[in-house]
């Protein structure tokens, strides 16, 4: 299915579903998460909004006005910051790779889903980005800045963690533990 806006319909997505994203996404990784968490803690307003946004854990290569490679980065590094961000939103979609920890899965319940895009598929991801709509916090550097992209049929993304707490990675992890 095509996901083209963040509304209550995201709560109907089930772990294992495959979706393609069309519309606006914003990138945020380590430094942006750390800065946003700090600002939210101090009651400051962010220059962009996580609420009803599609947040992509990604540090793209941007050359001039063109995105040339933009696959996902390891989402787990964003786990310490995500619960606090989730507390401040009504609905949110995250795109990344590798999954997130238990506290995040708990904080996502009833308001957020996590989509997995194949790691390393940077050239293919870039081909789905139609336009750079803006950039925030460029002082953090190219990879760490918050980029606003217009995407079309961005995917395939697998719903890896749904809003009811069903987590595909957890199932795999249980089997791996049993086989160790």
């Amino acid at each position, binding site marked *: 299915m095509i996901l083209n806006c963040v509304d209550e319909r995201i709560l109907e997505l089930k772990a294992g579903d495959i979706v393609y994203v069309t519309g606006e996404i914003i990138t945020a990784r380590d430094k942006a998460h750390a800065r946003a968490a700090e600002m939210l803690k101090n009651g400051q307003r962010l220059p962009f909004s996580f609420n009803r946004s599609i947040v992509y854990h990604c540090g793209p*290569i941007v050359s001039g006005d063109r995105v040339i*490679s933009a696959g996902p980065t390891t989402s787990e590094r964003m786990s310490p910051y995500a619960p606090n961000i989730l507390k401040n939103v009504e609905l949110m979609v995250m795109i990344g790779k*590798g999954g997130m920890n238990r506290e995040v899965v708990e904080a996502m319940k009833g308001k957020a889903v996590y989509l997995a895009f*194949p790691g*390393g598929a*940077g050239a*293919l991801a*870039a081909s789905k980005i139609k336009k750079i709509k803006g950039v925030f916090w460029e002082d953090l550097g190219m990879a760490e800045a918050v980029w606003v992209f217009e995407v079309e049929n961005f995917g395939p993304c697998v719903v890896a963690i749904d809003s009811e707490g069903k987590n595909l990675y957890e199932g795999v992890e249980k089997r*791996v*533990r049993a086989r160790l």
Partner: protein
Amino acid sequence: MNYEDVVNAVSELIVRAQTELPSDVVQALRRAYEIEESEIARKNLEVILQNIEIARRSKLPICQDTGIPFFFVEVGTELRLDFDIKKAIREAVRRLTPSVLRPNAVHPLTRENSGDNTGLGVPIVNIDLVDGDRLRISYMPKGAGSENMSQLKMLLPMETGKIKRFVVETVARAMGMPCPPVIIGLGIGGSFDVSAKLAKKALLRSLDSMNEFELEILEAVNSLGIGPMGLGGKTTALAVLSNLNHCHTASLPVAVNIQCWANRRAEVIL
């Protein structure tokens, strides 16, 4: 051979490695796609193979994490060079940032980005002397997602039987984070620091060159079922590549360097 020749050859090497995956790696990914049965595992491998094709055709970086640049240089003893090879390599890296390379190098404490992929000790260049009159430069960009999942352990000298277990545990701890199916560089012996270097250098080997010892560890790793991108499946690793060194009778250093499926590497001989 002059300074500019090396800068140009290294630039060409970097672009080639970043945009074209070696054929042995592509073949291994195709075989993985053939044997996977779960829909999600197949989908992930299908996208990975499509991405490799797009990157090759459009001359775009396969992955946005263009890594920290590693170079292994072999200098023939009959060769006479009147310039600094490290400087030439550094210049090539600088010229390709950010048209091909993402600025990745930061100061380890201030986290300030140098903006051009150079900095304290970066690019990382290893130079060896060999017989002959040629200059051989191998390049390997190393991304952080997989590098972060690597581990080193000083085993007891008689624990050679525990090496396999250590590799399997390292992969199990990494789960989907290093972008599986991974390639495992295994450095055994030497010393604390040498084992890590052996593991890294092993990643330059062809995936088709595995011996029985390596195949046995590979089978154990793949029985875990982590699968492509950690979403389950038969292919957790494409290869285990080891590199050995004699070591002290009282020690057994073992290093596991994890490499994502995008096992980018290339070499040039001048």
